[in-house]
């Protein structure tokens, strides 16, 4: 005897719903975007947020199940699934687990370049005076290895770190021993201008699986203008270095980053084309740094932010066009934001983290033994601003560093969940807090969002990305999803319906 079937009405609960935390933002006259605590978003007609709050959505309305499924509202039948929301929230903030993952060692300040945007290099100083000592190196490695993370990245910076290659070798040897003893995975990167690359260095990098990261600011006229060195041949030296390093280590172990300057802002296409010419498949359109020389040489935030946005937008258009023509090129800033927007995962990119990644996800050990919260923080210190100096590796313990007044201040003002202007922003879960930036540009770690270049830039970039996502252009979706899931366009097309 078959059991009888119950009608649909027997399974519909009451339509008395409650709100889950969400935020909203008007994208244009007709459309607003709703974003929940875990970054799930929904494009809806303008006025929808108000209707939701005023409980104008009956259970039989078309939007009701979507609001419920996407965790904007809950009703009496939702309660068991709030655990799922909690699991999603945990996933989003997974980057906090394990504490600091990126450890930057400034092994020397000596450098042959005198780049406009760098304020730390010391060209003419005696050897040794601005190099990291063995004692400092040993203590810094100890501190790095005390971080609970199973996966640690050790990055060498300078100055030009290859000028202190013996120090690098010493640090690599003790760090590798320590990591092996503690069962940690260790990734090692040297950030270098490659001017001092030798076969010995390349052999060493190959033997120790060390990656190289260099600066390539664009075509020759931009690169050489941004990065002066005696002889004015930085571009030539860099390209030669990239090619030698690729031959020795393989292309996947050689990366390039560009720094955006006033000059760069006029030339997004040329810069991107240079990356294509050099066979790179990633480019990071990074905002102008407000630190150091850039900060001192008058900083018109609004103007520069808008100019940067135009640069970014033109660049992204061009990158999409290159992909359309069959060249796979990923824009890293977009990739980071899209991962936050389109997937349940969080990402560990320091500038776009909340709680701020300063200290929590990156620590900088300066040549003189002082520890800083970020690379920018030690640049401020070179300009005599020691706000973000967390302590000294020779005299302070890891506990001292993480309970220092500077670190506590960073945490207190590094959560956009509670910052004025951020706490009710729809893009909060995709964005960061960047207290170091706001201290540097506004003299206040909390910062003032209406005049913040950081806020203005990220709002514009995210509005732009959402307008692209909303356009329904399936090619853009394919490229974006390829970036998010690390698949090139051919792989993406092979896996989706075509």
């Amino acid at each position: 005897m078959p059991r009888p079937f119950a009608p649909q009405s027997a399974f519909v609960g009451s339509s008395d719903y409650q709100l889950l935390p969400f935020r909203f933002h008007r994208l244009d006259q007709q459309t607003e975007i709703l974003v929940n605590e875990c970054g799930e978003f929904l494009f809806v007609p303008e006025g929808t947020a108000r209707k939701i709050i005023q409980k104008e959505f009956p259970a039989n309305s078309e939007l009701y199940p979507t609001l419920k499924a996407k965790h904007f509202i809950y009703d009496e039948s939702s309660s068991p699934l709030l655990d799922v929301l909690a699991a999603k929230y945990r996933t989003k903030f997974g980057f906090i687990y394990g504490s600091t993952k990126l450890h930057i060692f400034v092994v020397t300040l000596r450098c042959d370049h005198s780049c406009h945007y760098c304020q730390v290099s010391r060209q003419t100083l005696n050897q040794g005076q601005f190099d990291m000592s063995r004692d400092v190196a040993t203590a810094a490695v100890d501190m790095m290895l005390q971080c609970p993370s199973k996966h640690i990245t050790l990055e060498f910076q300078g100055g030009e770190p290859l000028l202190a290659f013996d120090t690098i070798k010493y640090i690599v040897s003790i760090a590798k021993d320590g990591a092996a003893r503690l069962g940690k995975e260790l990734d090692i990167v040297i950030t270098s201008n490659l001017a001092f690359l030798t076969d010995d260095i390349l052999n060493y990098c190959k033997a120790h699986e060390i990656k190289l990261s260099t600066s390539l600011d664009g075509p020759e006229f931009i690169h050489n203008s941004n990065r002066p060195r005696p002889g004015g041949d930085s571009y030539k030296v860099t390209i030669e270095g990239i090619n030698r390093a690729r031959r020795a280590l393989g292309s996947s172990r050689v990366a390039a980053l560009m720094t955006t300057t006033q000059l760069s802002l006029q030339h997004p296409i040329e810069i991107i084309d240079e990356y294509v010419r050099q066979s790179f498949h990633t480019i990071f359109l990074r905002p102008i740094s407000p630190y150091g020389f850039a900060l001192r040489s008058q900083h018109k935030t609004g103007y520069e932010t808008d100019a940067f946005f135009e640069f970014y937008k033109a660049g992204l258009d061009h990158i999409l066009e290159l992909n359309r023509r069959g060249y796979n090129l990923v824009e890293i800033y977009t990739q980071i934001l899209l991962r936050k927007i389109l997937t349940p995962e969080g990402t560990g990119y320091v500038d776009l983290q909340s709680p701020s990644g300063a200290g929590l996800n990156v620590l900088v050990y300066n040549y003189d033994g002082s520890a800083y919260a970020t690379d920018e923080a030690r640049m401020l210190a070179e300009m005599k601003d020691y706000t973000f100096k967390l302590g000294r590796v020779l005299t302070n313990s890891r506990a001292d560093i993480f309970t220092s007044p500077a670190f506590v201040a960073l945490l207190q003002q590094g959560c956009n969940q509670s910052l004025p202007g951020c706490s009710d922003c729809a893009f909060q879960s995709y964005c960061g807090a960047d207290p170091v930036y706001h201290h540097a540009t506004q003299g206040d770690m909390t910062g003032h969002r209406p005049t913040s270049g950081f806020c203005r830039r990220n709002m514009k970039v995210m509005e732009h990305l959402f307008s692209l996502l909303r356009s329904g252009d399936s090619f853009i979706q394919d490229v974006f999803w390829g970036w998010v899931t690390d698949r090139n366009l051919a792989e993406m097309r092979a896996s989706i319906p075509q």
Partner: protein
Amino acid sequence: MRLHTTGIGLGFSGPIVARVATAPVPIDQRKDTALLLSFLGSAQDLHGYSAIVVRDKVDAPLGIPTMHSVQHIDHLASGHIIALEPLNGFIRTVYRPESKHNTLFATERCNSNCLMCSQPPIDKDDIAALTERNLKLIDLISPDPEYLCITGGEPTLLGDNLLAILSKLRDKMPSTYVHILTNGRRFAWPDFSHKFAEINHPNLSVGVPLYADYPSLHDYVVQARSAFDQTVLGLHQLARYGIQIEIRVVLHALTIPRLIHLAEYICRNLTFVDHVAFMGMEHIGHAPRNMSELWIDPVDYQPNLETAITILTRFGIETRIYNLQLCVLKPSLWKYSKQAISDWKNAYRPVCSDCEVQGRCGGFFQWATERQSRGVHPIKLN
């Protein structure tokens, strides 16, 4: 394909599971073997067999469990494993070594009652008897198959009995890939999921149906309140233990309107699933009774299906289509189509004889005669 027949039991009162022999075997191989005969020869040596299956009538007990007056014996072959049930005379083929689609049938019971269930549950306490049969069956299976499916009814209703079956499979045939078809609800209870995971079967996956992205619709389709919550929580429990999960979505008029939302839901809430299977509806069991509510011509939901698959595959979740003929699928979806209609179920229509892709097509269920898509037609390449 015939999978059961009937006869008259003689000389035994409890069920027997045995391997079929169509010709006499040496005495040392007769244990757990049922000798299949058309008639009893005069001086036949029957000593040591666990049962005799005879097409002719047998009047007097042979001193060995006997099933006689058997209606059909031609479908039985050496190596098949059969279950003899003396009370109702059933002779079920429970395992065929030549098939890639063997199942362990766990129970007829179910705690759901899906509107389109192809095998409607029967509320009788068969768990002890079927568990005993399945444990014996596992003993007899040889060689180890590549694949074995545990189905029902709802296998998790077996509780500890399911764990016993899985333990035995793990120990006896660890390389056999075991797929459990379950509604997943019971896994919402952490102690059960924990015990299930502790079996630590090396080659296990579960197939769990999900029909909507919100509770009331899913609960209606499966005819059980709280089923959605339990299934989703159960999936999260299974994911905690790293158990492979297949999500199964049956396509019909109640699931199509939320199909795209369901794909989005999976990408946000169930990212850990191994793959998603979209299944054409079988027109058997409960489905015919509810057809007015369930029927939608597959050609009419191709855009929804394509969008749902685009969402999942862009996200990187592998997706498959089962039980839909290539001629009703959009060509862009052919690459997801798998020939999974079990070998004892699939068939082709007269119209298929002119089709140039029949060899790649899963065909129809043998019983799919009631409603037919208007899209069914022979495909000519170029």
